[in-house]
């Protein structure tokens, strides 16, 4: 099993993005950079003038930035978690999608953390969090959990990259020195393969509890206060389910783009979208179940404070956001994902875009209405984000897309060695595995 025996002709299309860069890439790059610079300009303004130039005020101390924080951390659950579960379940169809999923996790985490930092009144003092760490605060749990998650997901992304980096090193092209360093002397020997597989399996098991903990403690930021409709035990699982929900949607969108732009129709086939579509369908239903339980519990409890927030969401000021969320998270994706006929790449793309918008609204609807209705009556202040907040959101999304694009230019976005391994080994393995399930085929 020497990697070198393979020639580049096989799977050549996977090397294309790294070898050649077209005009479209540069045009997109320019547009994204322009949006990022605009977002940066907005932030510089905020940094110099203070958070007063956002729409925030007392008592709505948290708004779009915290919404973005929860949203981006949620998106990060696409990659590592899905990929780990598929790997452990030995789902063979995972081979061409795991890489694109794992990259999402690692990159998007920076924007989750970044939004928290941009929300700080004194970002220059952020290292106080380390110097004066106070572990009773759920925010500190977030810091710890997200750091571990970021480290674990980076390792988990990197390990399966090693053989592919070695391929790039051996077959010439740009940046030889770069690939040589990061290939860590991979020769594809039996022992190396064994070690790598062990490492990947270990990380796959490790990242699952870490990922679950991340979104649980993100929810704890809200649930550990005594504020109405935040102080809820369902928030942990609700947030984790929502995170996976929006994560899968982000993955489907990314896969659609990669497929179109790099002509990888042969690698990312309708069956992948169909399977992920089913997963997304399950999450849609799960999301509905959690939302339904949460609001029904509040409604039957009937506490006046809770009901004030409840009605502000159902019929009051936040009704457009709330029903928008319901439309995008449930009513649009459900029919599309329910039928095989519409579970196509395009169908799942529409459903996924809808879910992403819906989940952003969900985070907004969790954060803002509670703060708008404080316990002690106060002047009524309504919150609407200003251009600064929207610009920073646009900047974050563009920056994420930019980093993702650059990644595809440096590393293969489909795991080449895993696809090859699938072709060569898995056929026989799966056959063997099925034999062990079935009666009357005489295994031992």
């Amino acid at each position, binding site marked *: 099993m020497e990697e070198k025996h393979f020639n580049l002709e096989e799977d050549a299309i996977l090397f294309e993005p790294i070898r050649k860069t077209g005009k479209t890439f540069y045009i997109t790059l320019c547009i994204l950079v322009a949006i990022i610079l605009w977002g940066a300009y907005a932030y510089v303004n905020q940094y110099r003038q203070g958070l007063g130039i956002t729409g925030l005020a007392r008592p709505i101390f948290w708004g779009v930035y915290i919404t973005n924080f929860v949203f981006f951390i949620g998106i990060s659950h696409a990659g590592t978690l899905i990929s780990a579960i598929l790997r452990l379940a030995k789902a063979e169809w995972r081979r061409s999608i795991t890489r694109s999923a794992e990259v999402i996790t690692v990159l998007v985490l920076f924007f989750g953390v970044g939004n928290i930092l941009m929300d700080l009144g004194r970002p220059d003092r952020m290292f106080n969090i380390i110097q004066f760490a106070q572990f009773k605060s759920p925010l500190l749990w977030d810091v710890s959990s997200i750091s571990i998650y970021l480290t674990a997901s980076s390792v988990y992304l990197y390990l399966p990259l090693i053989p592919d980096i070695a391929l790039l090193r051996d077959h010439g092209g740009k940046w030889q020195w770069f690939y040589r360093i990061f290939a860590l002397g991979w020769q594809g020997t039996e022992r190396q393969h064994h070690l790598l597989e062990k490492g990947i399996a270990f990380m796959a098991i490790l990242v699952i509890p870490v990922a679950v903990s991340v979104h649980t403690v993100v929810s704890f*930021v809200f649930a*550990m206060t005594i504020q109405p409709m935040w102080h809820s035990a369902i928030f942990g699982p609700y947030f984790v389910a929502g995170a996976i929900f929006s994560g899968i949607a982000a993955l489907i969108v990314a896969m659609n783009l990669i497929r179109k732009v790099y002509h990888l129709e042969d690698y990312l086939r309708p069956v992948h979208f169909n399977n992920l579509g089913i997963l997304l369908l399950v999450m849609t239903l799960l999301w509905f179940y959690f939302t339904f339980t949460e609001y029904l519990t509040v409604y039957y409890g009937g506490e006046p404070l809770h009901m004030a927030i409840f009605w502000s969401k159902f019929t009051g000021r936040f009704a457009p956001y709330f029903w928008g969320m319901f439309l995008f998270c449930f009513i649009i994706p459900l029919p599309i994902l329910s039928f095989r006929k519409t579970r196509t790449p395009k169908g799942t793309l529409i459903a996924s875009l809808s879910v992403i918008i819906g989940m952003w609204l969900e985070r907004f609807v969790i954060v803002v209405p509670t703060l708008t209705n404080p316990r002690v009556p106060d002047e009524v202040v309504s919150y609407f984000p200003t251009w600064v907040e929207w610009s920073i959101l646009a900047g974050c999304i563009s920056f994420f897309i930019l980093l993702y694009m650059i990644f595809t230019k440096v590393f293969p976005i489909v795991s080449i060695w895993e696809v090859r391994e699938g072709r060569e080994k898995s056929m026989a393995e799966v056959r063997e595995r099925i034999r062990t399930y079935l009666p009357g085929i005489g295994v031992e």
Partner: protein
Amino acid sequence: MVIDLDRCSGCQACVAACQAENNIALIGPEESAKGRTIHWIELIPYIEGEYPHIKARLLPRPCMHCDHPPCTTVCPVNATYINEEGLVAQINHRCIGCRYCTTACPYTVKYFNWYPPEWPKEMKGSLNRDVSIRTKGVVEKCTFCHHRLLRAREKAKVEGRDLLPEDYIPACVQACPSGAMYFGDLNDPFSTVSRLSREKRAFRLLEDLGTEPKVFYLSEGM
């Protein structure tokens, strides 16, 4: 602290005294309408009962200085904590401005500096030198005029005597023209505040949350 609502006339002298004593920035009517005002003590409308047995009154609301404050546990950097006097203190130069304490406080009595604090030129000379000026991007709150306690302690020390209860009262209590506010040691069973807090008229805000506020209100009730 005890506030007798049956005596309060809603004149806002406490609010004005507090603004001057604690160097609270002025932000103008426009920003104020957006909800950016800072008031360490504020008169809020408090409505009791339901129509037709409704009673509306203005309620002066400083920080409650809870025994179990929801704001201190959530601070990631220990910038807000209960000090040895039992007051909920805020270290302005450590605060990172995450505004977790402001959202966790059920009384919403913590305030954020949305802008760098500003005063008209004429007022700059009359700022209180005992109270540090906050920067933009940090949280501030009522301290029960803690700087007055420090000053009173020093004075007592210089005079070689023990600190007496009347040595230290916050600016709002001092300014109240109708004598509706009382300040003292709640732990001393013979102090005025302690006696008043055990009166039938006494109640505390959102008592059912278990935050154990140290501000008591007196009211004849409905």
